[in-house]
């Protein structure tokens, strides 16, 4: 039973980290109705950035977390106008065009990473790597716990921000009823840009931790895009609170399959569950989706 | 006389808002019935529930004796209920003829047959000379006509018209009223949501009034305008004074 418990804990810990990505991604959809196919690539970029920063400036990757957050926030904020243009009304099928645009963006980023940094697999170590944390009934790798803690903290901070800050209220208003919010004087465009920027920032940060926990390579984005899709569909598209149980579920699924079957089957398992969900409960497990 | 459409105890809420609250009504075949009420009284939701765009929380919708409550909109359309949308939704990159043809597909076997049916409907609705015009280039009045034509092409027994008259100038209003009368003369039952009383009162045989998702009155037009509940809720004093 020790292995099973260990697997469960591992899964939950990873889930916590995935939730950070899922929350931003889901909010992005709720506010802008855009599915960012490049989500996994932002993770990859965050991981690589941490790697290069550690390479050139030394120190622990954790130190760079805020830097990466602001860096990718800025990048997201700059890219948003392009997305907005792709989706703007005068075109036919704006929603479709938005999807295609982010799809192209994903290819672009991945191709760029492959070309610039090649196929090598990198890794990053922190002072926590290799350390363990005894938790009474199980021993937990300290880094994984740190990732989980980060995930929880970031998610809670984000949720609080959404609930209590003035901008957060504006964001929730736009997510609920864009036209009404516009009529009430909210600058929906700036709100959307901000949401996208926060999402890229959060996801980039999550990437740092993922990079420290697992290996870093240019093709890693695929996995996290799949994870993000899974989480968002199970949570119900646009229903941000649903991301929390969905994220943990994904962590558990991934962990169980990796340990009891094989790491090579995880994506397949994720796809099958995703498929099953679309078949049986397309509006998410809690039925609150779009 | 059998009722063509029967709605029993329909309810629907969105989030916290009760849009339709225990609505029951019946439409007689061959009639032109008006559905009026203040904004937010549930008229369009009622239409959406009947034609299948949304599912009710509770309640039953019966068409020609057959329960259609949870059917898909395309199935309901093929069974004989056509509808227009409040904001016209033409297929913008297609011509007027092509738009109407699509409606005729459900009862044609070849493209040629659909085309002929569509032309006939275009003639009937007065759009024949614009058949090759792209729907995107039409005026609002013509777009509304196109909506009606497309719905007629499906060969409906019941036609749901959602505010076809709002926004038209007086000449266009007259034209629309004549069209609705002609539609009834063809044997199609009409249920129309409308705010323009000048059109509703002369056209309709029967008027149903909604408020807060519930039916508050139904009667002939001249008795409805004298109904104090209706005047309070919707029509206002000017109608009482007029009559």
């Amino acid at each position, binding site marked *: 039973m020790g292995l099973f418990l260990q697997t469960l804990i591992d899964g939950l810990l990873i889930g916590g980290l995935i939730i950070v990505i899922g929350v931003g991604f889901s909010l992005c959809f709720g506010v802008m109705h855009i*599915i960012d196919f490049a989500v996994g690539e932002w993770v990859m970029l965050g991981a690589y950035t941490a790697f290069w920063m550690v390479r050139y400036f030394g120190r622990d990757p954790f130190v760079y977390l805020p830097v990466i957050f602001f860096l990718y926030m800025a990048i997201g904020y700059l890219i948003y106008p*392009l997305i907005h243009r*792709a989706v703007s009304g005068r075109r*036919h099928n704006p*929603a*479709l*065009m938005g*999807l*295609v*645009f982010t*799809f*192209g*963006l994903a*290819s*672009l*980023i*991945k*191709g760029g990473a*492959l*070309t610039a940094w090649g196929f090598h697999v990198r890794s990053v170590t922190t002072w926590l790597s290799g350390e363990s944390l005894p938790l009474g009934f199980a021993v937990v790798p300290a880094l994984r716990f740190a990732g989980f803690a980060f995930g929880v903290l970031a998610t809670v901070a984000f949720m609080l921000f959404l609930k209590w800050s003035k901008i957060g209220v504006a964001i929730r208003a736009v997510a609920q009823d864009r036209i009404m919010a516009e009529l009430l004087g909210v600058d929906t465009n700036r709100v959307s840009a901000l949401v996208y920027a926060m999402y890229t920032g959060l996801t980039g940060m999550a990437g740092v931790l993922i990079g420290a926990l697992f290996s870093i390579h240019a093709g890693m984005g695929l996995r996290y*895009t*799949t994870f993000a*899709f899974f989480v968002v*569909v199970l949570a119900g*598209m646009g229903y941000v609170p649903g991301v929390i149980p969905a994220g943990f579920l994904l962590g558990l699924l991934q962990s169980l399959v990796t340990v009891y079957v*094989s790491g*090579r*089957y995880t994506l*397949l398992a994720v*796809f*099958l569950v995703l*498929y099953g969900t*679309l*078949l049986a409960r397309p509006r998410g497990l809690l039925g609150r989706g779009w | 006389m059998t009722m063509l459409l029967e709605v029993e105890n329909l309810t629907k809420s969105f989030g916290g808002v009760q849009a339709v609250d225990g609505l029951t009504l019946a439409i007689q075949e061959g009639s032109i019935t008006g559905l009026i009420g203040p904004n937010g009284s549930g008229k369009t939701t009622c239409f959406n529930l009947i*034609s299948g*765009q949304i599912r009710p929380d509770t309640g039953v919708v019966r068409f020609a004796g057959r329960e259609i409550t949870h059917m*898909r*909109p*395309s199935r309901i*359309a*093929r069974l004989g209920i*056509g*509808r227009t949308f409040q904001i016209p*939704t*033409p*297929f*913008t*990159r*297609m011509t007027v003829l*092509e738009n109407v*043809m*699509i*409606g005729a*597909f*459900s009862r044609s076997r070849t*493209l040629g047959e*659909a085309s002929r049916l569509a032309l006939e409907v275009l003639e009937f609705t007065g759009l024949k000379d614009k058949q090759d015009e792209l729907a995107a280039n039409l005026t609002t009045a013509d777009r509304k006509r196109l909506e009606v034509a*497309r719905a007629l*092409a*499906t060969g409906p027994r019941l036609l749901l018209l959602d505010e076809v008259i709002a926004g038209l100038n007086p000449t266009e209003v007259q034209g629309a009223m004549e069209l609705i009368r002609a539609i009834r003369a063809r044997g199609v039952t009409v249920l129309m949501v409308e705010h323009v009383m000048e059109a509703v009162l002369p056209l309709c045989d029967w008027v149903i009034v909604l408020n807060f998702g519930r039916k508050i009155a139904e009667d002939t037009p001249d008795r409805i305008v004298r109904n104090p509940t209706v005047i309070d809720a919707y029509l206002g004093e000017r109608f009482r004074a007029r009559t």
Partner: protein
Amino acid sequence: MGPFWLAPEAFSEGVGNLLVGVKRISQARTSQILGWAMGMGLLLAFPLFVSSFWLRIATEVLMWAGLAQSWNIIGGYTGYLSFGHGAFFGIGAYATAILMVHAGWPFWPTLLVGAILSALCAAAVGFPTLRLRGAYFAIATWAFGEAIRQVATVLEVTGGAFGMQLPPFLNLPFFYEAMLIATVLTYLLAFLLLERSMFGYKLRAIRENEVAAEAAGVDTVATKIEAFILSAIPAAVFGGLYAYLITYIHPDSVLGPAITDLMVVMVLFGGVGTLWGPLVGATAIQLVNRLLWFLRGESTLYLVYAGVAICLVVLFMPDGLLGLVERRQLVLRPKENLRALLRQFKL
């Protein structure tokens, strides 16, 4: 009407159109018939007067033209983005490889198996997702594409990550002709089934405004599933042909995301939802690709160019090249103008 996964409606209309077409051909002006015949003849005889270098390029362009058109059926005409379409290509490739290598089958029947398998997968993936909005379909097809790639990487029968080696058949002119015929048939399929049929109009209505189409009596779900199945089949056939041509396949070469990317960018660039858009787009993009490969020899830049191209096209010319042409000529009859454009290319 029969089970929709056999796409009976589309096919019965297609056959009807074929018969009408045959009748029209017999009534057409001799000059027109001669023109088309000469064009076809030239294309068929192409291998006789070019070097194998250009023949190879022509073969690739033809394949991509066909692949792009297959994506166009569901992505362009219907407006539902299949972001895992490369999976069908890969399924066809692996079907041919597995049957020829492990079961000793001759080449041609393997194409049929690949086509049937792809059709079944399309029906399976389409059934739950095409009832929902386009975003779900995009996600599901993307995930499907990745899942199939994983399957190919882990199974033994597919050779895992090392791929498979097919019996070599080094006859470039044969492959050229085969690709030519496959592409011509694909375009004919698109023309008969989509350009002049109720089925095609329904797809376009779905793309324009799905709610309105539903209200007008179109069974959108069944129609979409039919379209998806129809789009999967040519992709599988091209996959099988490609596997035999290239002799060695592995998960990244026939199931990689680059394939879907290229299909998408080609159709977008040429003009979504038009008959000739995929051809224009495929020619342009593939020639540029080959040129770049020639100059720089790097394969991962492929993805960057495809990505940049997609973004630029979406931002500046969402209707593609043919869309630009159409708009400049204040069209009432787009088909006439397209024919005019074509005359400059082909006949």
